[in-house]
């Protein structure tokens, strides 16, 4: 187990270094990092030269690369020219909103997809199965953000039961009070519902197909032939064996949180990291975007590491590969 952990951790570090190297090279392809400042008439050439020297931009490329690596490991992810703040602190401020929205939603939708998927896989070919399959197909075909737009339109504009934007009413200060919590939850309910519903329906087809594959296995046929009760076969034979591929695919959704967050938070004007990425595009704040990519890549690698460790508990064979 220890050898497995060490090997896995080592490859995580390699992956991280590879990603930041790709990001560094791509960013350098875009030309002068101070281009935005040079177009600003309020800043004198001398100041720009000073900034250039202070960031080490007058040094050769390999030197810049090494100091970039060093800074990353020290926790310095660059500077946002729009927010006039280090990228890390900008992201840290927004992160709680995203995590509080996405983690419960992914967990609930995974759980629902697992429950319902196994059930309709078990009843493959039934009316229930084809109804869920059609809905799932349709939901997979709709763009993430458009579904959010439709929900926002129906519930906030037409019915007016939910707020139009934000995580709390503007002007409300962050304080742990019941009043604040109620306001927060009132803003929370709609994005949460959209994300959960979409996640559940989109993943459903996958769980269902895995279940159908397991049902075709000889040991299931044997179990049914032996006369074991359906419930027992479903839970002990089918669900157990469908578990492994399901954990891999549904687990990856935690690592890819940001993709859903970018679109959903943009539609709901929710002040999280996803919205931050959108604003970075809008404000042409390239360095914030670059820092965000690196920080998010790091968290994805950590999540992947955790999934792999969990997986090795479920299926001990992978430890010896």
């Amino acid at each position, binding site marked *: 187990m220890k050898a497995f952990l060490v090997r896995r951790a080592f490859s995580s570090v390699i*992956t991280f270094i590879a*990603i930041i190297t790709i990001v560094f090279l791509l960013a350098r392809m875009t030309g002068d990092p101070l281009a935005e400042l040079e177009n600003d008439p309020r800043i004198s050439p001398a100041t720009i030269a000073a900034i250039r020297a202070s960031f080490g931009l007058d040094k050769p490329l390999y030197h810049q690369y090494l100091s970039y690596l060093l800074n990353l490991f020290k926790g310095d992810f660059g500077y946002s020219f729009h927010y006039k703040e280090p990228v890390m602190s900008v992201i840290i401020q927004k992160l709680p909103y995203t995590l509080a929205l996405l983690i419960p939603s992914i967990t609930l939708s995974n759980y629902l997809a697992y429950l319902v998927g196994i059930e309709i896989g078990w009843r493959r070919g039934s009316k229930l199965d084809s109804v869920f399959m059609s809905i799932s*197909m349709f939901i997979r*075909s*709709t763009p993430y953000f458009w579904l959010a737009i439709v929900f926002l339109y129906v519930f906030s504009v037409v019915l007016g039961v939910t707020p139009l934007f934000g995580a709390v009413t503007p002007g409300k200060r962050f304080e742990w009070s019941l009043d604040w919590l109620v306001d927060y939850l009132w803003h929370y309910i709609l994005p949460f519902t959209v994300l959960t519903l979409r996640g559940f329906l989109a993943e459903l087809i996958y769980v269902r197909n895995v279940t159908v594959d397991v049902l075709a296995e000889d040991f299931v046929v044997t179990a049914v032939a032996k006369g074991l009760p359906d419930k027992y076969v479903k839970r002990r034979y089918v669900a157990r064996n469908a578990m492994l591929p399901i954990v891999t695919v549904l687990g990856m959704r935690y*690592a890819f949180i*940001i*993709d859903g967050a*970018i679109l959903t938070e943009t539609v709901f004007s929710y002040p999280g990291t996803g919205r931050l990425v959108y604003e970075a595009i809008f404000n042409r704040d390239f360095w914030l975007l*670059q820092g965000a990519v690196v920080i998010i890549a790091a968290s994805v690698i950590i999540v992947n590491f955790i999934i792999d460790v969990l997986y090795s508990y479920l299926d001990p064979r992978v430890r010896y590969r």
Partner: protein
Amino acid sequence: MKSARVLSLKSKLREFWSVYKRDKAAVVGLAIFLIILAVAVFADYIAPYNPYQRVGLPYQRPSWKHLLGTNDIGQDIFSEVIYGTRASLFIGFLAAISGTVLGTLVGLFAGYYGGKIDEILMRITDIWLSIPTLLFSVFLVAVIIRTGGIPMFYSVILAIALTSWPPVARLVRSATLSIKERPYIESAVALGSSATRIMFRHIIPNVAPIILVEVVVRTAMAMLTEASLSFLGLGDPTIKSWGTVLHFAMIKNALILGLWWWFLPPGIMIAVTVMSVMMIGRGLEIYFNPRLRKY
């Protein structure tokens, strides 16, 4: 000789159709897709106005003159949606083709040469797969735009192609691994065929079915990614795709003003098109993989 080939192609098509038509969903998908394709091709004749020109007062409600009203600068939304079909299909298809070609090359080289080359290429594939797709494409488009030199229209296509190849590479690699062990490849090697010839003349035709299904599925995915990127404002603002129409609907507050005729139709078109393409992909998969057939 020539007529015999034509005949065999005809009978092949007949055989294909006899299997394909058994899947009702695939047939419906194909029918819907053909209609949408016709809309894209004949957009000039179907659309009542030029979507790039101001043809009326801004923010009009749907009427017989403007079926889906007009947008914030007085362009006809119905014509925008009709022309959007062209851009969305074209971008989706081109991005899917490019991504699939890239993935096929990587998978082919990795699978055929094996050893160190395989290890390095697959390592890169895995690393690529571990970056969230949408975030990565957003970053790539931003990089391409900042670098300049490539028209904005193609930067979205390039970004989608560069983020969508890894799954294709994996599929093609595993297919190549099994094909290269077959006796006829051994004979080709014994005859002194070059590696390039073996890869492109003997292996590629045998992975063609996989590649074809991938192109179709990737087209559906690419259309969704294009819609997302354009919605976020990274698309070419001078070309009307469904995503760009939704982007302007969003930033011009169509939602809060309750102008459903502006933001509902493009989304419905995306959903219906993507679904029809996915149904075709499923039908092709069933045709090429007889184990999926239900008799």
